[in-house]
């Protein structure tokens, strides 16, 4: 298994075996953590080379592998460092969207379960957050990863993102947060004038999915308990009128039309509480992120391409070009990969093997690399390589710019 960390180009091995070192000791100072059998958790793991990492993984057989920050010193030597000087220096800005955070607004599943109906929530989340992180914040190198069970992660790998302070990370996460409140809060989204361009953009995405996702699949205006929940989010006078109207109108799409009409009326007259129909859409669809995951500079997050211990699915990177057709249930599992690896090699593959017998070591490496191509992982690794290449290009661009500047006086 080839493990690559999004920010560590010094550790990634592309198909041709390139290794790029952008910054000294980047990989050596990266923290990894393993969760072993019986829930034993070991932190502050660090490695000098990729081989060392692989060997340790094979030896320890971790159930979970997490990636943390780049520290000032090698994490596995942190106890030898003078207290106070061991610090996290950089880390990718990350986001974790977890389906359980939507339990109050999805009726098809709950807790760890997901299905194709509620998966739309992840699609919406990715569209909204990806746009905001790129267009509003100017980030370019975003990697979206399926968590393996019930959510997605986003790794923002721009240099500016890696160097953000705790305050900055928390500010970014708050900017992106619209749904607030826990069990006791009924109305989790409140909009006031003026409506910020970010909210408008997000609403545009939600509106695209709302009719099919909420009105049809989740049937929020069909079943009585759901209807009551939706009505509870409206001003009292509107609620009363609609309760009446709904006696005669049973079709969810038409019911929603009535809701919008009420909203239009309110927006013309009232100064407060007039955006309830937007608020409802956002409460049911807008991404819910855990600010605490994004805030910490030393927070550890599941490594892409690791195996989810409960489902066996691989945490694969997601190509946003194919987002609409992404199916979490079609993501390869570890047993599937093993099966695919065990398949007899074809004639073509066997002939390539003999060609490379000259250089023993390289051949082993290359076969290892080629092996994944025989599995369903191939397309995901390819996508990941493209992502890394794009990052490498932008560094090279930066380096050139810097060296140009240095020639100036």
């Amino acid at each position: 298994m080839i493990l690559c960390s999004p920010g560590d180009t010094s550790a990634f091995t592309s198909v041709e075996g390139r290794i790029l070192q952008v910054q000294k000791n980047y990989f050596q100072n990266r923290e990894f953590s393993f969760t072993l059998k019986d829930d034993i958790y070991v932190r502050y793991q660090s490695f000098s080379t990729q081989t060392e990492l692989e060997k340790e993984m094979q030896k320890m057989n971790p159930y979970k592998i997490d990636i943390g920050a780049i520290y000032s010193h090698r994490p596995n030597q942190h106890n030898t460092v003078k207290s106070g000087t061991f610090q996290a220096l950089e880390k990718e800005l990350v986001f974790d969207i977890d389906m359980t955070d939507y339990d109050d607004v999805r009726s098809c599943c709950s807790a760890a379960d997901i299905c194709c109906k509620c998966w739309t929530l992840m699609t919406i989340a990715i569209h909204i957050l990806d746009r905001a992180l790129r267009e509003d914040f100017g980030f370019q190198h975003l990697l979206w990863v399926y968590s393996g069970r019930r959510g997605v992660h986003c790794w923002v790998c721009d240099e500016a993102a890696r160097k953000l302070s705790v305050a900055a990370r928390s500010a970014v996460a708050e900017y992106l947060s619209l749904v607030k409140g826990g069990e006791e809060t009924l109305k989790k989204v409140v909009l006031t004038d003026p409506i910020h361009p970010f909210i408008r953009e997000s609403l545009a995405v939600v509106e695209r999915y709302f009719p099919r996702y909420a009105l049809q699949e989740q049937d929020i205006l069909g079943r009585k308990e759901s209807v009551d929940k939706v009505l509870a989010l409206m001003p009292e006078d509107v609620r009363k009128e609609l309760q009446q109207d709904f006696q005669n109108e049973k079709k969810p799409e038409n019911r929603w039309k009535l809701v919008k009409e009420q909203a239009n009326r309110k927006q013309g007259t009232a100064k407060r509480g007039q955006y309830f129909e937007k608020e409802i859409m956002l409460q049911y669809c807008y991404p819910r992120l855990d600010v605490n995951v994004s805030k910490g500079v030393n927070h550890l997050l599941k490594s892409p391409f690791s195996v989810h211990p409960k489902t066996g699915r691989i945490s694969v990177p997601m190509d946003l070009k194919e987002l609409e057709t992404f199916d979490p249930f079609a993501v390869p599992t570890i047993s599937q990969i093993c099966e695919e690896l065990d398949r007899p090699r074809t004639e073509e593959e066997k002939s390539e093997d003999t060609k490379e017998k000259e250089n023993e070591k390289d051949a082993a490496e290359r076969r290892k690399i080629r092996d994944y191509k025989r599995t369903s992982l191939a397309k995901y690794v390819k996508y990941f390589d493209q992502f890394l290449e794009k990052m490498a290009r932008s560094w090279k661009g930066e380096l050139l710019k810097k060296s140009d500047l240095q020639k100036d006086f």
Partner: protein
Amino acid sequence: MQFSSRRKKYNTNSQTELYLHPLQFYGQPPLENISLSEFEAFAVDRLKLLKTIENLGVSYVKLSEQYTKKLESESKALNFLYRPDADDRKSSGPTEYEKRRKDHISHFILRLAYCQTEDLRRWFIQQEVDLFRYRFNELHPKQKLEFLHRNNLQYDTISVEEKKALQDKLVNSSYAVSGITVEDQDFYKVPFQDALDLVRTRKVYLKAGYVFIPHQDIVTIVLNDFRTRLSKALALTARSLPAVHSDERLQPLLNHLSHAYVGQDYSIQKNVGKISLEQIDSLSGKSFPLCMRQLHQSLRENHHLRHGGRMQYGLFLKGIGLSLEQALQFWRSEFIRGKVDADKFDKAYAYSIRHMFGKEGKRTDYTPYSCMKVILSNPPSQGDHHGCPFRHSEPELLKQKLQFYKVSPSGISQILELVKGMHYQLACQKYFELTHNMEDASFSLNHPNQYFIESQKVLGGGKDLKREMDIPQRSQENSATRGPSAAPEAAANASQELAEVTEELDSFFQDA
């Protein structure tokens, strides 16, 4: 953000130049010699100013009319600059130049005192940022621009065309931005990392990592910059502190500045003997602050108090007017009801009471503890009843206690809010207001004995206690008002007073 690296050394000429401007970033420390008395006087004055700012900041909305009015009058009283224009022709006191010099010097002295711990740093930075915000706000628009340029905040403005193109987005991003704002004002393009507060609350238009800020709001940016610079500077200062501490003249001063109580000390009692022992029980319910009421109740219930409690309560009683004889009688009669017999009391406890009154040992007349001292020093442990209940009691227990003392539920939640914000003295002040049925206490609570006096005033014991208000201020405050134009002999007197004051300060922090 770009900063030019100005590595030139400042000589006194450029310092003079610095004082031509009403506001500065405190980038360069002062480079002159000053007397010890000026050193302390300046620092104490600035500390008073910062404490005022802290109090005002919790009682009023920052930069509201009441806030600025009160802050202006306090700045005036303390001879800190308050006029952006250096118009010296009118004023009779210290010149604007002198005020700015004092501002400069006092800031750097307090840096030394407040860089040592995280808590002190946080407090100092918060008050300095608020002070800066107030002063920046008072500048004329032209002066604001001048300040920005002089301090190398090179944010670019966007062109008129770009403004037009973004007009709708700009207007919809902020309640305060209208179409007119966009037309009239310059908009600055600032990296989002420099405007986190605006980003966090989504009060600004964000595009490609930049926020677009109208000139009127550039303050937030400037404040963040000020805060960051000060934070870094304090960290550096902390590292050079050992060198400063090795100077014996400065070390005690700096230590006490960070704990200093700078008001009346209630050690001179003009009403000795006016309180009778029989009154104490009822007074404890009516006019004692919560800490003393609690101590009194524990004493009555357990017929005993441990050392910390005896000191805090005993000195307080001295401050409200108990004589030594009364005090001895009071403690003795209570302790005898407990496990202590008369002999043991005379042997073990009487000595320490006489010590409190200055009749034993060093014969220093110890002063009653200020709120600051009660809150910061000697936290209570198991079996203790001293300390500040707002600081040291668990919120649940505090709530129960307040309920027991019949404070209204809404009052209790107001108090608990203040406690959550760590505003212990304001919580006690609120307790005062609630128990005396008042809207506004009209004093800033700093001392338990002050609480007692104010309470007695309100409850009608006004006549006798009016004289209390004439208690002379401590000697160091006298030397401060003399100002830098004092003659050398005044300076010599001042340093002698300083020695006495230092000893007095020392006594605050010694237990008998």
